[in-house]
Each structure stands twice: as structure tokens, then as C-alpha cells.
């Protein structure tokens, strides 16, 4: 599969001729199919979903549900276990909030030091209930030290929630091992898969985790949609997250019964146009094939690492030899924000900061870093361009 012509399917690169976009880990650009699907729905088929029986509404509802089916197939999930939320952050908040209601003082949660704030802050809220949080450490390479998990588990450990692929180092957590350790002790596992979907193979039946969260906007889909895979056992056991229309079965002045299934967690009008257009994003990725995306992004990462490591003053965050679609670095003597301003002058979009991973940055003893992340539209010329920009940066900051 040749990805060379893929870039032409992204209108952003026509409106911004010289744009070099290395911020897909933050949010992916949108292919024309997704943009067209949004427009088509609003122009030709718009109605709210699930509320009315007239034709337009029925069709909208069917299209919406067909995205659910597409997502289910894409990540090999199971029928009735895919919930739509606002974003990955909300998916994780939903799990932490609803699961938290089942917890009591002294119970323990295990996370990793590589977590994005969205898989830490929602759990932190539970400290109010005197729930304790433990962290699987990361080593100096940035790897999650899964061999330390067993010693953290006690009979009070109630859930393990971990990142699949780091949005800073690109390192992949050994989920199979974590899940098998957890299973032996009957501890549920929640996974933040935000950086994994559309960049690596995600097979939920094979993983057999309890929860798996990701965002539409990072997999070439529209903003405003998150996905939460949740095992039926929890769908039944959890109290609702939000209350309102769509999540009830029967309401009177004294009692309310809730809808069963995923509807229980989908209160209010949803981002229907975006969900419907998300189907086209998944179709786009499936047509290219995940395995081709992986080899494309890995070859770009190898090339970038080879070229960037030639600069003697570059320091990588973690061990970049485990290459994927993301890695981060710093130019010694130049703060990441200053470097990013220099890159921006050359129309190169690179994110500078702590990337919502302060624990990881503190552990690595750095305040911020420059993150490069790849998507289907990147190519080797993009990497040559950033190398020129790094040279320019060194010149401005008078580095040898």
C-alpha cells in the first residue's frame, strides 16, 4: 500500500500549503470523507437520533447505530458494550466515577507513572473517599515496570487502570502481562487506549480487559466523540453517570427506572453528526489497513530518530528504540517552547510542554519536551524539514 497519495485526501494541506503537521497525537487532521459526511448529514439528513419515529429521525438513528457497529468490528469488541461519550477523558471519568461508587475507605487503585492526566485526575477524586492510589513505576527508559505490579497488589486492590501507548515516549505497555496478573487475582483492568487505536492493532476480545477508552478526534474522526468499551457485567452493575433523557425506562414523581444496556450511560442528545461521520474515519483507516499504518509510521520514526540523533545536543525522553508513532526530545540549552516557536516560523507544528504527563516528566527530571507524532499524511520530507529547523534553532541560540 502506497501512502504517498493519502495526503491529498486531507484538505487542510491544500488550505495550508506548507504545513508540516507533527501533532497527530494531540489531534489528527481530517480526511475529506469525514468532512463530507458531516456536511452531508447536516445538509441532507439532519434530525436528532432516538427520539422520533418520522423517516429522517429513523435514518439518523440507524446511521448512528451503524457507527457503533463499525467501531465494534474495528476494535473487535462485543455487541452492546460500546458506549459513546464526549472524549476519552469523559470515558475515563465515567469509569472512575461509577467504579468509585463501589469503593470504600482503604480500597486501592493501581495506575502507572506514565498516565496522561485524564487517567489519573478522575481516580484522584476518589481520594476524598480515602481510597489509595499506587503507581507502577516507570524506569529511566520510560518503560512501565510491569514486573513490579505483583508486589503492589494486595487484597484491597480493586482496579488497575493503565495506559496502552504513551503519548510522550510512544512506549507500549505490556497489557497482556498486566491483564493476566490481574485476572489471576480477579481484579478488573481499565485501559486508556487513546494513542493506540489507528496506530496499532487493538483487539478487545484478545485483550479481554474490562474497560477501554479512546477518542474519535485522534483517529481521523470529528471532535466531540469519545468511545468507551465496557464489559456488560459493569454496564449492569454501575449506577448511571449522567441523568436525563435517553437513559431512563420509566419515570414518575416517586421512582425512576433506568434504561438497560449502553443507553444507561448515554444521557441527553449526543453528538450525532460527529458519530455518524466517525464511521467514515474508521472506514478510512480500515481501507488503508492498520498494518500498513504501522509500517508507515515505524519507518518514519526510524528515519526521524536516525536523523535527529545525529545532533549531538538532542536528548530523547525515554528510550526511543521502541519506535512507534510518537516520541519526544529536547535540544539541550533550548527550552521546548523556544524551539517550538522557531519550528512554527517554518510552518512545522510540534507540541511543546508536558503533554498532560507531569508525573512522567518529573520522573525524567525535565519540565517539558518537544513531541513528534506521526499520522498517515507525514513523509520523509517532513522530517528533513524539521532537521533544517533544528539547525536554525541551534544557530539562533548560538549552540555549536
Amino acid at each position, binding site marked *: 500500500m502506497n501512502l504517498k497519495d493519502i495526503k491529498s485526501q486531507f484538505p487542510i494541506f491544500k488550505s495550508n500549503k506548507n504545513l508540516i503537521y507533527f501533532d497527530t497525537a494531540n489531534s489528527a487532521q481530517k480526511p475529506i470523507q469525514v468532512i463530507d459526511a458531516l456536511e452531508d448529514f447536516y445538509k441532507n439528513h439532519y434530525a436528532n437520533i432516538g427520539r422520533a419515529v418520522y423517516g429522517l429521525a429513523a435514518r439518523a438513528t440507524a446511521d448512528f447505530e451503524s457507527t457503533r457497529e463499525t467501531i465494534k468490528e474495528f476494535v473487535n469488541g462485543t455487541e452492546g458494550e460500546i458506549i459513546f461519550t464526549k472524549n476519552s477523558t469523559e470515558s475515563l471519568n465515567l469509569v472512575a466515577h461509577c467504579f468509585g461508587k463501589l469503593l470504600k475507605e482503604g480500597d486501592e487503585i493501581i495506575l502507572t507513572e506514565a498516565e496522561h492526566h485524564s487517567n489519573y485526575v478522575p481516580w484522584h477524586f476518589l481520594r476524598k473517599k480515602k481510597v489509595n492510589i499506587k503507581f507502577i513505576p516507570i524506569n529511566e527508559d520510560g518503560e512501565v515496570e510491569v514486573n513490579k505490579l505483583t508486589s503492589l497488589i494486595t487484597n484491597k486492590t480493586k482496579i488497575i487502570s493503565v495506559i496502552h501507548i504513551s503519548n510522550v515516549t510512544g512506549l507500549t505497555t505490556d497489557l497482556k502481562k498486566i491483564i493476566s496478573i490481574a485476572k489471576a487475582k480477579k481484579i478488573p483492568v481499565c485501559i486508556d487506549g487513546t494513542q493506540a487505536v489507528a496506530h496499532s492493532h487493538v483487539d478487545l476480545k484478545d485483550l479481554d480487559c474490562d474497560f477501554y477508552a479512546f477518542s474519535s478526534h485522534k483517529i481521523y474522526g470529528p471532535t466531540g466523540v469519545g468511545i468507551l468499551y465496557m464489559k456488560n457485567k459493569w454496564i449492569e452493575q454501575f449506577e448511571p453517570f449522567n441523568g436525563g433523557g435517553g437513559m431512563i425506562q420509566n419515570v414518575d414523581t416517586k421512582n425512576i427506572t433506568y434504561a438497560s444496556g449502553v443507553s444507561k450511560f448515554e444521557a441527553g442528545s449526543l453528538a450525532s453528526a460527529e458519530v455518524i461521520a466517525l464511521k467514515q474515519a474508521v472506514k478510512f483507516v480500515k481501507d488503508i489497513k492498520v498494518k500498513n499504518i504501522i509500517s508507515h509510521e515505524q519507518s518514519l520514526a526510524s528515519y526521524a530518530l536516525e536523523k535527529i540523533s545525529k545532533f549531538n545536543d538532542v536528548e530523547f525522553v525515554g528510550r526511543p528504540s521502541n519506535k512507534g508513532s510518537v516520541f519526544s526530545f529536547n535540544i539541550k540549552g*533550548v527550552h521546548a517552547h523556544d524551539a517550538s*516557536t522557531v519550528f512554527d*516560523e517554518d510552518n512545522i507544528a510540534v507540541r511543546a510542554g*508536558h503533554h498532560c504527563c507531569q508525573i512522567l516528566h518529573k520522573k525524567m527530571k525535565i519540565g517539558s519536551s518537544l513531541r513528534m507524532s506521526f499520522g498517515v499524511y507525514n513523509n520523509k520530507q517532513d522530517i528533513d524539514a524539521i532537521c533544517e529547523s533544528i539547525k536554525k534553532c541551534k544557530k*539562533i541560540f548560538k549552540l555549536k
Partner: protein
Amino acid sequence: MDLTELYQDLILDHGKKPRNFGKCNKFNHDAEGHNPLCGDNIHVYLSLDTDKKVKDISFEGSGCAISVASSSIMTEIVKGKTEKQARELLNAFFKMIKEGQEIKKAGLSEDEHIKFSSLAGVGRFPMRVKCATLSWHTLKAALDDEKKPINSEIID
């Protein structure tokens, strides 16, 4: 605008070798400032004497070249000024960065004026304005005896 104008020698020098860095002796006012988005943080210490003159001023913290240079230059300029002059200067700084207003020379030596104006170019990089203003907001917080850390992301 050329990047070398933003990152001129004076700014690079102060960014690399900040002056008045650390806790100054016998400070009687201090405040903290943060920019949670970029992770910059700064602590400004100052010692005001009985006739409201800035006897000493210093800062600690970490950040990009622009934020460190702006802090360093601020401490050099404010040292020895009265509280009233310090407040006028910080207002003039915000005007210069945000509205591109030239600062009047009044009250500043030639050298101080050059240092102060060296940061004017930041105004043309909207994403970097907060880097330059953080230390000045924190100075204001120190003068006001503001106990809560200030957040430049919200102010600017």
C-alpha cells in the same frame, strides 16, 4: 518579524545567565506565579524598605528563554525603584507587550530603557505573550501580598 529580533543577544544572555536568581536576603514580600499550560513557574521575592523602596528583588523558577529573560530584566530594572514606580513600570510593560505601546523614557536610564524595550517584540508572537508577562504579574502579586499563586493562563 525576524526570529533573531525576538531572540536578540540581550534576551539570550539573560535567558542563559539570569541575574538576581535565588532568594534575596530578608525579603518581606513574595508571590508565586504559574503557567499550567507550559509548566513555567516562578517565585518573586522582594524587600521593601520603610519608605516603600525596592531594596532588593530576586526570583527563582524555570521556564523558556523569554520567561527567564523577562524575569531577570524585570529584577534589574525594578531594583532601587519605589513601589509606585514599580507599579507604573509593570503597567507600562503590559501596555507595551499587549498594545504595542512605546514606553516613555521617564524614570528609566538609557540602559534600563534598552533592556525593557528588548521584550517588546514578544507582542508579535501571541502564543508567547504569557511567557513574558508571567514574572510581571507575579511582581504585582508580591506587591499586593497575594497569597494564592497566580495563573498567567487565566490573567492574559
